Structures are given as structure tokens and as C-alpha cells.
């Protein structure tokens, strides 16, 4: 009996120890992130100075990116094309900042050039912070799991504050701040169209799901984790000489591949190995 107790005790300590490890790895992750961002700060400053000297750089990058296009309406591109500069800054770079700033907090700044009679030149900065929020929904398997919850019901999510941006004149009818009649079908429709436009995203908070720009946090993450770091790659992809080679992104052509038929017995084994190769690539 004592032996059993010893083994169980040993197991128990092991589980507790691993639980401590889970906490420790988060600290390590944060330290690594901090180290990385501190290296990236001077790097991005230098890189962005070069980018400033390339005409239409951001127009090319944002118009080519299909992920980005998924978030906005086609008509928004008239204004997105007028973005001359995008800058992402991580809040820990700010020397004055609180030592408790989450390494994942950041701001995105857009510089727009103007369109006469339609849209003024302006620069807008929107800040995003990781915040602990009460989780309203039941915890269930369909959650995009992976958030580290202290207790079920609280999760750390990206939130933001609404920022003012001058809307284009051509969007007057769908500008939510200008719509007086929000009750009629047409009024509601216009309101929603406005909220779904790129300009509606600047109002996004992350605290009113269903009542504001959908997936606002995903658009923010796309810009901060993907487009801003890899913008040079995306720019060069769009410069490829053969238009149908523009993108590396996942063209799933598995439907179009010929079948790997097993070779009849007696021939070399390449066919067999290759045949198994297809097996490994199971979807």
C-alpha cells in the first residue's frame, strides 16, 4: 500500500510540476517576445525609411493581399489605395510605458493622402490591447480553443477604443454617425453597410460582438502579425513577371493532381515510395 502511495505521490508531484511549467513557459514566451521586439524596433525604423521611398508601396501590398480583401468592401479600395504609409508599433517600445504593458499590445497608424472633394488627407492611429474579459458564452468544444483561461469564463482578448476618422463624402449615406433614421429598413441597411466598411473598423472595440465591424480583431492581427512584418515579401510577389505567379498562397490543387497509380510488380521501387508519398499528404 505504501508503495502505491509513493508512486501516486510521485505522479502527483509530476503533474503539479508540469502545471508550474505551464506558467513558466508563458513567462519565457513573453521574454522571448520582448527580446525579439526590441531587436525589431530599430530594424523596422530603418526598413520603413526605405519603404517611404517606393511609390505606391502600400497600395500594391494592400490591394494584392486576398486576406485583407476578405475584410473590406470592394468600394473601400478607392480609399485604401490612398494609404501612403502603414506603421505598427508595439507599446512596449514606448520608454514611458508601464512595465506591465502586455508584449502583445500594439498600435497601427495609417497615413492617407486625400482625394479632392471626397476625402481629406489624414493620419489615424488605432491602439489594440490584450484585455481580460468575462466570457459570456458557454464553454464548449466549438470555441476557438487555445486561450489560456485562468477559470472558465474569462479570456484574454484583443480590444480597442474607437478612433475618429473623417469618412469620405461619397460614403455620406452610410456613415453611421450621420444616419438619423436608424429604424427604417433602409436606415438600418445603410447603418450596417457603414459599420462593415473599412472606416467602420476604426470604431471597433471588441467589446460589442455582433454590433460592430465583424472580426475586427482578426483584421488587426492580420496587419500586425502578417502584413506589416512581411510587406516587402508581398510587394515583391506582386512584381513577379508572370501574373499567374503573383502569389504563393495556398492554391489547393489537389483535385487536379493525377493519380499515383501503383506500378505493376517488377519495376523499380520509386513508384511505390512515391505512392506512399501521396498517402502522407492526407488532408
Amino acid at each position, binding site marked *: 500500500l505504501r508503495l502505491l502511495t509513493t508512486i501516486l505521490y510521485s505522479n502527483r508531484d509530476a503533474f503539479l510540476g508540469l502545471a508550474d511549467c505551464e506558467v513558466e513557459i508563458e513567462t519565457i514566451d513573453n521574454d522571448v517576445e520582448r527580446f525579439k521586439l526590441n531587436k525589431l524596433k530599430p530594424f523596422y525604423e530603418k526598413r520603413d525609411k526605405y519603404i517611404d521611398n517606393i511609390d505606391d508601396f502600400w497600395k500594391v501590398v494592400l*490591394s494584392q493581399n*486576398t*486576406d485583407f*480583401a*476578405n475584410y473590406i*468592401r*470592394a*468600394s473601400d*479600395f*478607392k480609399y485604401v489605395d490612398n494609404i501612403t504609409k502603414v506603421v505598427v508599433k508595439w507599446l512596449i517600445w514606448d520608454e514611458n510605458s508601464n512595465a506591465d504593458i502586455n508584449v502583445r499590445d500594439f498600435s497601427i497608424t495609417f497615413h492617407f493622402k486625400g482625394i479632392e472633394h471626397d476625402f481629406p488627407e489624414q493620419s489615424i492611429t488605432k491602439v489594440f490591447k490584450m484585455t481580460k474579459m468575462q466570457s459570456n458564452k458557454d464553454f464548449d468544444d466549438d470555441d*476557438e480553443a487555445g486561450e489560456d483561461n485562468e477559470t472558465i469564463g474569462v479570456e484574454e482578448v484583443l480590444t480597442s477604443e474607437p478612433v475618429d476618422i473623417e469618412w469620405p463624402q461619397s460614403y455620406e449615406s452610410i456613415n453611421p454617425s450621420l444616419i438619423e433614421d436608424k429604424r427604417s429598413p433602409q436606415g438600418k*441597411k445603410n447603418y*450596417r453597410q457603414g459599420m462593415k466598411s473599412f472606416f467602420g473598423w476604426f470604431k471597433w472595440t471588441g467589446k460589442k460582438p455582433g454590433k460592430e465591424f465583424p*472580426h475586427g480583431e*482578426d483584421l488587426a*492581427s*492580420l496587419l500586425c*502579425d*502578417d502584413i506589416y512584418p512581411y510587406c*516587402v*515579401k508581398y510587394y*515583391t510577389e506582386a*512584381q*513577379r*513577371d*508572370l*501574373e*499567374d*505567379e*503573383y*502569389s*504563393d*498562397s495556398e*492554391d489547393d490543387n489537389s*483535385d*487536379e*493532381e*493525377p*493519380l*499515383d*497509380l*501503383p*506500378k*505493376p510488380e517488377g519495376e523499380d521501387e520509386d513508384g511505390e515510395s512515391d505512392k506512399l508519398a*501521396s*498517402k502522407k499528404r*492526407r488532408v
Partner: protein
Amino acid sequence: MSLNGTHTLDELLASVLPRGHDFELLHLQDEPAQTHDIVTPMPTTQERADTLTVKIQHFFTLFHNKKAVFALEIYVYLTLSSLHNTKLIFVSKADTSGYCDIKLRMGDITKVFLQYLISVDPLHYLRKVKPLRRVNDHDESLIRKGTSVERSLRILAVRVDLSPHPCQNTDKFYITRNDVGGDTNWVTKICLFTRPADDYLFIGSSKNAKKHKLNGDQLLKWWMKIIDGLVCTDFDPNNVSARLRVPGEDTGRVSRTYLNGDLTQSNNWQVGDIFGGTGNDLAVFHVPLFPDDPKSRFIRHLVQENRIMKTNLKTYWMELQERQEFKLSVIVSVIGVEGHTKKIPDYLPNDREIFICSSRRQFRYIRSYVAGEEYDNEEGTLESYVNVRDYLELRYSKKLLKLSGTREPEIRKPVVASTTKRSAIPVTLLQPRKKAKPAK
């Protein structure tokens, strides 16, 4: 009308759209691309080496009152070899949104699109074909898919100095054919797979109460009417085969139920399919590989299970019916036509009626404004219109094709058969919609 008397797309469509109503059309065509044989050839076949198979995707969306009401996706396959030239039209998906304010004859509209594609000259597609494998000539001055970012930037730096910008000659990276050699007498084939589902292109539209859905039997009959109509109007009756197969049903029953003359006017119908083979032949050499197609999926499944060289056609059809994809007792069918058309396909689409994309990516991008939208209420159908219209205008200064209906209203006679059910259109394949994962 075009020079040689063939109708343009807008003329064809207008003839089946009600007079007094205006419509707009999106017609996208993908970049023609070389692809693999439609049917896996037997390993010993010599023909392989000199066969060229080209695949082209067409996507049509019809708009009325600024709303998307009908969409159709079709693949055209051209097979060129010294022995014969074939043009195969594979109907992939057709759908209505259910949000049309007026009644439309969807069957006639579908038929007209197929007639249009039947008439298109294959040479239209063969002007510029993306090959399967591109020439690897190590030309270091070109920015290619495998060129590193760093290298691309250095190339761009060099190009800045060259003024005016030299045009990169990229012709050698494409296959072009100005003639098709061999037999110019094209064989035209039509294939489709019918299976009832809630929606195919207008995802969520099944929630729309106004949208009619057909069950398997009604769907089959709906398509049979269209295809039979095409066989009669567009094919040489002495030179056409029309085939229907209903997996899980025996020949006699299929014949009695669907080919008894009530549904079909042509005499060329038989039970079976146009890819030949008898029950004992290996299925793999007689089943085509189409995109998003349950028959093809099953073939690939058999490869994975290592049964592909042991499964004959008889077993294949039997097991196909039992696949999980199909609910029990749902009627699905394979319809095929093969023959010579009455008129040689020599129509060249004009710029107004077609937007030829320069890459698959561009094609999918624009297509997704329609097919990626949600249609469980009317707003999706409005959004898709606005996005397509704005995008084409902004990026390509192109407008949707406008048409006005010319068809006179008819007095409807009471009918017995269910084939004239109004405006419902489902079709073909259930494509489970994958949610793209959020970027990590």
C-alpha cells in the same frame, strides 16, 4: 449577332429573360491552364505523350435589381491529340439565391449558357495556356515564383535604372496554339452529376423561404429536360450519344422511369455513361477526375485505400451509392452527352460579355465576392452585386454586361409533370464550406 451568325451571349440570354426587365451579367473566365488527363490513361497507352489537355473555368452570375439571382460554374476541358479533339463541358454548380423579384425560367437560362459554351471556338482558349511545368531557363533577370525576396529587390533596383521599362518577354512561358492539328472536327461532350443539396453557390440561401429546393428525382428530371433539349437543338441526331446512369438503380428501372419518352424527346438516350467500360473493367480507367466531384473523390479514396487496381466499374457504382456523402435513398445521377454539334464551334466571345482573368488567383478573388458571401438573407445578394460592380469598375474600369429581356410572357398551361416547378435550381455538388482559419 456575331459575324458568322452566332448569337452573342447577351442576345442568347435576352431571349429567355422576360421583356421589360433589365439584368446584368458577370462572366468570368479563368486563365486556361494545362492539366492532366481527364480520365487516367492506362499505363501502356502511347497517346499520353502527345495529348494536351487544357482546363478552363467559367463563372456566371446573373443580377436583377442589383441582386444576385442565379450563378453557374462550368469547367471546359479541351483535349487535343493526333487522333481526335474533344471539348468537354462539365457542369460543376448551378444555384439560385431565391431573391429574384420576378419569375425567371431558370431551366431555359441554364440551357442558354450551355448553348453559348457549346458554340465557343476552342481556339479562343488556346491563345494563351499556362503550362503544367514552366521552362526553367535560369533567366536571372526575371522575377519568378522561386526568386527570393532579396534577389527580386536587386532586380527591381536594376530595372529602375533602365528607362523606359523593358517589357519582359514572357511568351515562352505559355503554350499557344493557332491551330489544333489533326482532326478539326471537334467532339463535344457534356457531363454533370446531379445531387440535391440546400445550396451550392449561394451559401445560406436555403434559409430563404422563397427558394425552392428539388429532391433528387425532381432534380434529375429538371436537368434531363435541359440536356435533352440541348441534344435535340444542338447536336447532330445521327452522331450523338446521350447517357444516364443512376447509381444504385438497375438499368431497366432507370430506363422505364426516366427514358420512357415522357421526359426525353431525343432517341439517343441509353442507360450508361459516356466514359465507356463494362462492369468488369477497372473503374480507374473509366471515371473522369473532375474538381469537387463525388465520383472523383471516391476514385482518390480508392487510391488511398490501395484498392484502385482491384475495383471494377460494377463494384464502383455500387459502392458509390453507399458513400457517406449521400444520404440514404437520395437519387443521384450521372448525365453525359457525346457527339458532334450541328454547328462547328467557331464563336469568339467579345470583350463586353467576358472578363478573362490573367490568373487563377484573380479569378477566385472576384468569384469570391459572389460565392464567398452569405445568403441567408437578402443583404448578401445585394452585397455581392455591389462588390462585384465596384471592384470591376475600380480595378479594371469594366462594367457588368447589361441586358434587357426580350421574351414575351406566356400563358401558363396547367401541367402534370413536376418538371416545370418554378424557379428552383439546385444542382450538383454539396461543397462543405471550409472556414478559413484565422491567421495565427
